[in-house]
Structures are given as C-alpha cells and as structure tokens.
C-alpha cells in the first residue's frame, strides 16, 4: 500500500487548516509498519484517508497498484474507540463481515472458533460487548477484523485508554497474532515502547501538517519479549533516536501552541536529566 504526496486540508479560504502535507510512505507487504508522531499531528486523518472514509485533497493512495476510492474489504480498520456493535454477541460481531458477504460457511465458522481461542474469548462468545472488559473488547475487535483476511490491517491507537497491565497483555496477544498470520499491518501509536516491541519499520511523523520525518527499521528478531526489549542495546539505541526526533517535533508543535506537546517535552527533559 503506497501513499504518494498525500495532502489533506479542512475548511476553505482563510480558514483552511492543512493537516497532512505532501506525505509519502509505503506500507510494505507482510510487514508491520508503525506510525508514531506527536499528539494531534494528523495521524487519525491519515487513517481515515487510508481507510477511504475521506478523500485526500491531493496526492494518491494505492493498494496493490489500484487507487483507494472508498472503504473496502481489502483494508480493515480497528478504531481508537470500540466500534463493536453493542447489540450483537461477541460471536455475532466476529461473524458480521462473513455474514454480510453471505459467507456463513463451515470454514468461516471454524476460523471464527480459531480466532476466538487465539484472542482468549472462547468462553465469552455469547456475551454482549457491555459485558466484556476493555481489553476483551479490543481483542474481539481484532478478531472481527482478522476474520476477513484483509490485505492490510489498519490499527488506530488500538490499546489507548487501557490500564498498563492490560495494555501489556494486549501487546503480547497482538504480537502473537501478528507473528502467526503475518498480515500486512499499519499500526498507529503514541507509545514508543509499543512501537519498538511491535514494529518492523517505524515511521516518525512531523508536527502538523504532518509528513514522514524519518523511517527507522527495527530488525530485532522475532518472537520478541517485552522484558528483552528494555535490556536490548539495539532497541535502546532506536528508542533514543526516536525520542530525540519526537522531542524536536514536539518542540515545534509546542511553539505552535499545543498543550499536549508541553507534557511530552516536560517528560522528555526529566528523563534526560535522570538518565
């Protein structure tokens, strides 16, 4: 999946707000590409463009050479906020895609069973989303996307808002899923440790209007373990480099009046003094 010189602005005339500007990147097949950037830099806008919910103001987005014109089954989006249908059980949510396409086949049903086990929701198939914990909901949503075997999985900060323990558990679940199915993935996050633990490639984004600042290849062997990452020198080197770049971008964003950036800069400077 390739984005070439993509720009997106909202409003018109003097009220124009440029969110994405001349942004180009490639989501390589079979790899897990993580996009990380300062808060409010336009990541979610990029996701909506990739998903086809909105059209780019200029530039092109192609998947397998074909331009993206709208939402499609070749790209599955897992949203920031839970978008499980509250009126369907876990199992019905997962089977929604296949059923919508008239593919309620025994193969699909057994694939659903497999996914239910993989995400640890086997005993919760008849529960409604309101009866599941936050982490379970995220896992159910992952399964609902994966059953459609999309060419590209797009995840928009999927573990945001979970508590630290759950988040770590989710990252492990997710890494296992990825390593098993090796589906091309575009993963957006603001968490640098999460990015290094999961990614094959990290795209570091600039401040708004966003474009790719740097691409970092993460060639740590798989399967990875969260404990090892913190002690691995290569991983730490990547982390320092990424944090440095993010700090620069956050400074620009802070100069532009972003409050979110101030927190990051504060945390970064404390860390540097301590380290």
């Amino acid at each position, binding site marked *: 999946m390739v984005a070439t010189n993509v720009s997106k602005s909202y409003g018109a005339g003097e009220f124009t707000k440029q969110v994405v500007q001349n942004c180009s990147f490639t989501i390589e097949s079979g790899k897990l590409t993580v996009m990380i950037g300062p808060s409010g830099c336009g990541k979610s806008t990029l996701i909506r463009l990739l*998903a086809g919910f909105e059209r780019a103001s200029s530039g092109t987005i192609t998947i397998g050479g074909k331009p993206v014109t709208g939402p499609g089954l070749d790209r599955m989006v897992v949203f920031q906020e839970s978008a499980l249908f509250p009126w369907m059980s876990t199992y019905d949510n997962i089977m929604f895609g296949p059923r919508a396409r008239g593919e309620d086949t025994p193969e699909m049903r057994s694939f659903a069973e497999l996914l239910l086990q993989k995400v640890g929701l086997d*005993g919760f198939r008849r529960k*409604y989303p309101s009866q599941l914990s936050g982490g379970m909901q995220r896992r159910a949503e992952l399964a609902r996307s994966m059953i459609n075997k999309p060419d590209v999985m797009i995840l928009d900060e999927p573990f945001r808002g979970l508590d630290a323990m759950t988040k770590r558990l989710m990252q492990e679940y997710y890494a296992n899923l990825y390593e098993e199915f090796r589906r091309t993935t575009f993963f957006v996050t603001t968490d640098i440790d999460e990015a290094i633990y999961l990614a094959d490639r990290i795209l570091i984004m600039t401040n708004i209007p966003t474009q790719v600042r740097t691409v970092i290849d993460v060639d740590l062997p798989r399967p990875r373990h969260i404990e090892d990452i913190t002690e691995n020198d290569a991983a730490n080197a990547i982390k320092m480099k990424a944090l440095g770049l993010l700090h620069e971008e956050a400074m620009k964003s802070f100069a532009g009046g972003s409050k979110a950036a101030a927190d990051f800069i504060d945390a970064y400077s404390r860390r540097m003094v301590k380290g």
Partner: protein
Amino acid sequence: MTETSPVQVLTTEVPRAIAVDSGAGASLALAKYRLSLWLKSPRPYLMLIGFAGFLGFWYLSVEVWKLPRFSQMPGPTEVLHEWFSKDPTYGLSIFIPEYYMHIWVSTRRIAIAFFLATVIGVPFGLFLGWSERFKQFVFPVFEFLRPVPPLAWVPLAIVMFRGSETPVIFLTFLASFYATALNTMLGVESIDVSYVRAANCLGATRWQVFRHVIVPGAMPFIFTGLQISVGVAWFSLVAGEMVSGQYGLGYVINTSYTMVRYPTIIIGMATLGLVGYVTSAAVRLVGDYLMQWRTRELALGGDR
C-alpha cells in the same frame, strides 16, 4: 460463568436443546430472584406509603376537614364503596358488565391507534434519520403540524371521518405518531458514526447497514418513544372520547359529569390510571425483551 468447549459448539443439535431448557428454567429463577430482591428492597413499601399518603390526603381534605374547594368532590370511602358495590347507586362498578365494556372499547382504540402509529411512525422516523434528503422534504411540514394539539383536530376529524369510532382513533393515532416518529429519528441520529464506518469497512451493503446497525442502534430511543407514545395516546383518546364516541372511559367521565354522577367520574379516572400504567409497563417489558444487550448485565451471570 460456564466454559463452552469447541466440540459442544460444533455439534449444534444437543447444545441447542440444553440452551432452550436452561433458558426457561433460568428465566423463572431470575423472575423469582428479582421478586425476592424487590420485596427486600424498600421500593414496594415506599410505594405503599406514597399511595397511603395520597389517599389519606384525599380522605382528610374531603371527609374530615371538608375543605371548601373539595365540597363537591366525592371522598375515597364513597368512591371505593361505589366501585366495589354489587348494586352501585350510579350504575357503574366492577360488578357491572358495562364497566368492562368501557375498558375494552378504550383499550381497543388505544391498541389500534398505537399499532398504526408504531407501524407507520417507526419506519417514517427511521427514514427521517437515515436520509438527509427525505428529512429536508418532510421534516419542516412535520414540525409545522406537530405543535397543533390533537384537540384542535377534533372538528376536522369529525368532518373527515364517518361514524364515531374512526375520528377517535385518528386523534389518538396523531399524538402517538408524533412521539414515535420524532424519537425514532433522534435515535438514528444518535448512532455513533463509527458503527456505520465499521459496518462499511466489514463489507456491509447499504441495506445491511440499515438492518443491522441503524435499526438496532435506534432501538433504545424507539422504545423511549413508544412509552411516551402510549402515554399521549391515552391523553388524546380521552379528549376524543369526550367529544365523540359512545363508549370508553373518556365517555364515562364526560357523561358522568353532565349527569352529576361524581363518584363515577373518579372511578373512570382511577381506571384510566390503572390501565394506562399497565400498557406502559407492557411496552417497557417488550423493549427489555428486544434489547437484551442492554439488560443482560443485570442477569444472573450465565453466559446464555
């Protein structure tokens, strides 16, 4: 909660039978559990105290203190005596078949009007919320007609419809329809756009989005609307029955007034209160049954 093994799920016949069986047993147990919980809670007793206070005030102000405003009003003892009398002074009590005739006629009118209002109002509201274009055509007219009270429609209703039955049903329908349609529309508009996006992303067609996202997503609002609808239905029914009609509780109240049968007025009013309460509760029950995804959290922990 019970773990379901994959084998059990793959062999469909046996677990289904079990599920049905335990389902019925569980719902009975659940009903018993809820009843005992209700009896243990202060709610029923507070309710009784509330009613006792209300009746006590009525009794004291009419029969003991004989307050000037209440001089024409029958007291509770007189009304209750009349209501449960085998030979009522003014001709209407629970032992008189005509009493049930009135209840039946009113309820039947409500049922027809409410049914029509639901069958027309829900799809109408769904389309209002679903299609921006349809809304632009229709909604201004709808909002123009909605503030016109059903009572103002009485003359036109009598002119438009022959007989005494149809005008009353029309008036009842009108109020019901507005409440249902408006709430359904708000229900559709309240649906989070991410559900629609998710369904589009998962390959659903426009119709599938409508059927599996819009309709269930609007359901909580629809049932709020139906509860309001059944309430205002009684409201405009009585108005209609007072003007035209030969039976019904509104007719009872109105004729009792002109014929100076004051206790019968109160009997009619109290009966309206009771029957109205029952219809609202029935709508709520149906709503809870259809929206188990909202009520399941309260169930006894089982995963079926």
